């Protein structure tokens, strides 16, 4: 998988300073059509929780359709301070994913044969993005010059 990391205090996207981690910015920078995938979000902590379900499952995981994922990340100023966010093809079911251990921060590149893109946000300090689709990583680096290869 190709990968990139975004780290630092003064990060700009479209001439605006961004904070860790606005998922809307990350997926937009990657130019990924989020509605075409299912999304696993696990081990997360947000600056606030738009829904009770999101708050209650923060130590576990949530599984979202592309539509629900889009609705979630459209919340202005929603920040995933911590979070492992992974997109899967619509043909991959939650049951398929749960045949594996849920991701933790101790490792990375969790589902190289299943995932479309993997986004890791850690302590509002840095974001890593991994994908087998080189275009997503290249788009990320092109959109946010401070991003570098890993």
């Amino acid at each position, binding site marked *: 998988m190709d990968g990139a990391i975004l780290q630092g205090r003064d990060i700009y996207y479209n001439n605006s300073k961004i*904070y860790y981690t606005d998922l809307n910015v990350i997926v937009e920078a990657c130019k990924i059509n989020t509605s075409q995938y299912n999304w696993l979000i696990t*081990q997360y902590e947000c600056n*606030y929780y738009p829904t009770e379900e999101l708050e209650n499952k*923060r*130590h576990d995981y949530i599984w979202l359709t592309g539509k629900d994922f889009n609705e979630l990340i459209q919340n202005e100023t929603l920040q995933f301070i911590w979070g492992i966010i992974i997109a899967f093809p619509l043909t991959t079911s939650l049951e398929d994913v749960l045949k594996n251990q849920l991701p933790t*921060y101790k490792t*990375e590149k969790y589902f190289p044969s299943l995932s479309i893109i993997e986004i890791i946000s*850690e302590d*509002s*300090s840095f974001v890593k993005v991994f994908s087998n689709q080189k275009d997503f990583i290249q788009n990320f680096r092109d959109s946010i010059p401070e991003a570098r290869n890993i």
Partner: protein
Amino acid sequence: MSNHKNVNGRSGDLPKTSTPNSSQDLYVNGELWQRRFYDSNGNMIKDIDFLHGNGSGTHTFPHEHYWEWINGTPVRK
């Protein structure tokens, strides 16, 4: 420390608002993980992280984070 209290819980359990000019310590399984400070309005303004249970192991401790309130929503810097 005046206006200070200790909380036992899990990561992320400290409240966003509390008594004005106060602080809280989060203990997870008996270990101090985080200290949070609240401003004169009772809004969280600063965290000191002493430990993370998760993470890639690349962090140094303790370290600080600051909160900025934008239109009533806290954003962690």
